């Protein structure tokens, strides 16, 4: 079969596939029923386009597409068509037909391939459903499956935090080894029992402004903790250590100078979400970095690819925890009217909820498809 015969035999299928892939081409077909004569319609359509001065065509095959019967398009079977055109491309390649023809088929196939094999939850109608599936199953499952990294990360984060709190009770000057005197006095002003707004530098800062600030600042820190984990885990460990030391010395110092009555009720509400989110960001980064150091029986690159797929899920979930923590911190933790006991109770309830969430949710099978192809 020579090339001309080949094109003649199969071109209609290529045109149909092209229309299916590029729905905007359907507009070429719609007007057809109203025009009795195909030719006259084509003429008027050409004039219209010339009048609009649109030199850019949607497809070089527009004129041929305009001659297609609309019914063929609506009855077309995309998967079957796709496989047939794949076969045409292979034939065209092995018979060494002209490069243009091969390019044209290659173009069709690469587009169809992207549509055919795309993952439904990316573009699908059920974006909300897959989001819910992520938080009810995928995220807690990923955290449980990587619990060793979560515990490791928590150790690196909470150990210096708790150590600093205890150390500063006995050696108060220890705070200056972590913070500058300016930072310390700024912090003291924020949590002074007489201050009109706790936890803020100036009383005038409103809740909504601080909400924006917490989202921007805290989530960015989380993202950086994760990303720098790629440097063999060093970045994550340093960020975790630094944040642990910093938070610990702040808590220790404020307790030691007697501001604990304002500090602890303020942080109790959002502490569960925020501290856990930091630990999870670190765990995701450590998982990524240590996959390069300890690849097991895989190649280092393959081990990293596999680790990255899981760790990005943990980081994605942690990011949302940062958002919720920011909301709680801005609109609940700062409120003056709520008694400290209620704040403590809410704080404890939040910790229990976070633990319960990761321990008990998502034991049913995940709806989220296992994407091995990434």
């Amino acid at each position, binding site marked *: 079969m020579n090339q001309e*015969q080949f094109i003649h035999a199969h071109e209609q299928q290529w045109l149909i596939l092209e229309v299916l892939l590029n729905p905007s081409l359907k507009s070429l077909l719609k007007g057809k029923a109203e025009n009795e004569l195909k030719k006259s319609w084509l003429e008027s359509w050409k004039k219209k386009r010339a009048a609009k001065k649109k030199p850019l065509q949607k497809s070089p095959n527009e004129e041929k597409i305009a001659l297609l019967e609309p019914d063929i398009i609506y009855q077309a079977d995309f998967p079957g068509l796709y496989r047939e055109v794949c076969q045409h491309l292979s034939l065209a390649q092995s018979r060494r037909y002209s490069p243009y023809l091969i390019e044209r088929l*290659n173009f069709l196939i690469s587009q169809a391939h992207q549509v055919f094999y795309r993952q439904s939850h990316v*573009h699908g109608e059920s974006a909300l459903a897959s989001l819910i599936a992520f938080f009810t199953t995928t995220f807690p499952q990923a955290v449980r499956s990587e619990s060793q990294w979560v515990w490791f990360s928590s150790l690196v984060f909470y150990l210096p935090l708790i150590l600093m709190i205890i150390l500063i009770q006995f050696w108060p000057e220890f705070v200056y080894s972590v913070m500058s005197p300016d930072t310390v006095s700024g912090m003291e002003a924020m949590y002074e029992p007489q201050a009109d707004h706790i936890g803020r530098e100036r009383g005038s800062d409103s809740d909504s402004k601080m909400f924006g600030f917490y989202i921007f600042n805290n989530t960015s820190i989380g*993202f950086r903790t994760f990303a720098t984990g790629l440097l063999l885990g060093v970045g994550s460990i340093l960020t975790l250590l630094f944040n642990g030391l910093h938070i610990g010395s702040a808590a220790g110092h404020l307790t030691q100078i007697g501001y604990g009555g304002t500090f602890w009720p303020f942080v109790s509400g959002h502490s569960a979400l925020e501290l856990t989110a930091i630990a999870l960001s670190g765990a995701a980064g450590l998982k990524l970095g240590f996959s390069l150091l300890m690849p097991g029986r895989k190649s280092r690159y393959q081990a990293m690819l596999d680790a990255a797929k899981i760790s990005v899920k943990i980081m994605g979930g942690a990011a949302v925890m940062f958002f919720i923590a920011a909301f709680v911190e801005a609109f609940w933790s700062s409120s003056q009217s709520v008694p400290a006991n209620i704040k403590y109770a809410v704080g404890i309830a939040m910790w229990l909820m976070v633990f319960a969430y990761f321990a008990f949710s998502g034991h049913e099978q995940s709806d989220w498809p296992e*994407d091995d192809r990434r």
Partner: protein
Amino acid sequence: MLDTIKIAETPEGVELKLTCVSFFARSLAWGIDALIQGFIILLLLFVLPQLGDFGTGLLLIIFFFLHWLYPVFFEIYFQGQTPGKKMMKIQVLLIDGTMVNWGASLLRNLLRTVDFLPFFYALGVATMLMSKDFRRLGDLVANTIVVYKRELKEKVLQNQGETEIKAYAPDMALSAKEQQIILSYAERVNHFSPERAEELALLAVPLLNDLPVSQQQEKISSSASERILGIANYLMGRR
């Protein structure tokens, strides 16, 4: 085989050719995106603070999303193309030639932080220049690749020549490679000046042996290129 072409095989056994994008085009796309982001920030800096603290809070949230999730949003919902990539006609794909997904897009964009180290994408540029497919660290981890978006070019040969130039059966058997060369010539002939087309056609000496010599040497006639185009038409089956 050109080394900027990456082959992705589909499950149907068809090989897709992905053309990797070099460092320069990618930087330009990044620059355009940075300008757009900067412009939006600048605009909001003038507008939002008028709304007081609420505006400042909103500004910070928008800044956060612009900084971290602007590329993710466009890569997911606009076929792997941020506005900058769209202008450069490039797109992000997974290494197997399919659309980038949430996980991969989030990974490659969060890891910008590492690519940025120690200053202004130094690590990313170094990785890009060292890796075979111009991939920065984020691409390597997310298993993505930045490629030129395929576009169907205008037809070259089909609209021209098929009526005017008669098919001509070559006097000798042509190898597959030679047939390919002649077909490629026929498809690109419109991009050459007539003089250059003739000059190239004259290289195929054995196919032109029976042409009158005087025609080849005196003023420029299109006889040699016409002969080659005739053979091309023959090869394509336009007899």
